[in-house]
């Protein structure tokens, strides 16, 4: 694990997030090293997805500090103190994070190619030609070079999700978040999406944070597996250890339940 030696690319410090009465993150401390592949597993409703959503700035934490690449995400430095971040600061730090969603969230009014070029051209201000060339490469990489001109409604779920992965990659994030990206797919389409993610994991340089129910896949690609329940990290370690000989009773019970069916 070469990654653990350097400074973390993502650090959660004492992060709390609640929705009304329901607390989904309880004073969470959690690090991700550069290029590390971390899988978060746990019962549904345990707040796994909220970790990703807070990091992507889709939800605002109630308390605590999140650091991305050494900079506070939801705060900015004002002298020695941390004050709530401005929109400008948020956009700067957010630039190093990308996300792939459970329901794809492709732009339905744009072709596959334009879905991938839209943000590089208008957010990163890349020249159109360069953005298109890169988009073609990325769509080729996810096996969709023949679907450039197709609209999302003309693609299968697995194809949509691969376009969504290409779209996120086009922004060259340092950390990529995968939020249950195969949960909305028909079973026979899951494999093609997992293969793409597996290749990305093998390339290595990008940190990846995955929430998934695909345990076999998690075991295969992860450097570290985190078992998360009731807003807290219950147990974490290399996949062989977590899957092979879990220590905590809750972890054991969870794996017994999911691996049996």
């Amino acid at each position, binding site marked *: 694990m070469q990654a653990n030696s350097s400074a973390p690319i993502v650090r959660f410090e004492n992060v709390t997030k609640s929705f009304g009465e329901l607390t989904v993150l309880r004073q969470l401390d959690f690090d991700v090293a550069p290029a590390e592949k971390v899988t978060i597993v746990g019962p549904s409703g345990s707040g796994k997805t909220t970790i990703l959503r807070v990091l992507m700035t889709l939800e605002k934490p109630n308390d605590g500090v999140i650091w991305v690449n050494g900079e506070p995400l939801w705060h900015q430095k004002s002298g020695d103190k941390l004050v709530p971040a401005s929109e400008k600061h948020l*956009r700067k730090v957010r*630039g190093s994070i990308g996300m792939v969603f459970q329901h*794809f*969230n492709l*732009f339905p009014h744009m072709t596959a190619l334009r879905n991938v070029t839209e943000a590089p051209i*208008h957010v990163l201000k890349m020249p159109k030609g360069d953005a298109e060339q890169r988009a073609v490469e990325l769509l080729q990489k996810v096996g969709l070079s023949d679907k450039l001109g197709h609209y999302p*409604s003309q693609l299968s779920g697995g194809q949509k999700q691969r376009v969504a992965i290409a779209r996120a990659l086009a922004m060259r994030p340092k950390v990529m978040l995968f939020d249950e990206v195969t949960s909305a797919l028909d079973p026979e389409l899951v494999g093609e999406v997992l293969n793409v993610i597996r290749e990305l994991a093998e390339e290595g340089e990008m940190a990846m944070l995955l929430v998934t129910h695909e345990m076999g896949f998690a075991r295969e690609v992860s450097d570290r597996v985190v078992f998360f329940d009731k807003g807290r990290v219950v147990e974490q370690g290399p996949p062989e250890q977590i899957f092979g000989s879990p220590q905590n009773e809750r972890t054991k019970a969870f794996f017994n339940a999911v691996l049996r069916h």
Partner: protein
Amino acid sequence: MPNEDHLLVKIRNYAFLVIGLLAIGIAIGVELTVNPPETAPFDLLPILLRGLAVTIELTLLGAALALVVAIVAGVARSSGHIIVRTITGFYVEVFRGTSILVQLFWIFFVLPLPPFNLSLTPLQAGVLALGLNVGAYGAEVVRGAIGAIPSGQIEASIALNMSPGLMMRRVIIPQAMVRILPPFGNLLIELLKATSLVSLITLSDVTFQGLALRQSVGRTTEVFLLILVIYFLLAYPLTLGVRWLERQRQWAT
């Protein structure tokens, strides 16, 4: 031969409209034979067509005002700013909650008197009343379309680091447009029909010319049936256009 069948159905769908128009033509013919006018038949048409120019002018100007008002008020009603939202909400509810004829009379009869002393020509009053009334309905369409954008689209835009303005321009508005166009087409038809009300404030549109002709030359049946046909020929292509638009939602799932 599914295509031929399809064509037959299509022809049949419009056959009765054509037959209906022919029936009106025959009715006018019979009327002219029974009560032959002193002048040539259809001599009234040029006068009615002069009214048609006013009706079209009023429709276009009213629609332009309504469009601007609908977009501004619709976006304002979706705004997070409570004062902006309340003021536009008041405007929308007042204009949707009262009769357009009362709005027209208010603008035409009340504004020129003290304390307003704002004299408007009948055309200005008509455009203002139609634009503000239909604009209020349009604002609700715009608000509904913006609200119907799935939250995933906004989340994806944030994840791609788009600014709020870019998100509005490139993601939300293009998708809302598809939902907006068919109801806007329907509102345009309602606006066209409502232009006839300006005849009641002495603006010489088609309906006004008809009322004037009825008083000067009589021939009531002929005059009003011709007017009906004129409005139908204006409105029905719009109806067909709206139906075509509704079929064109290729990417809207």
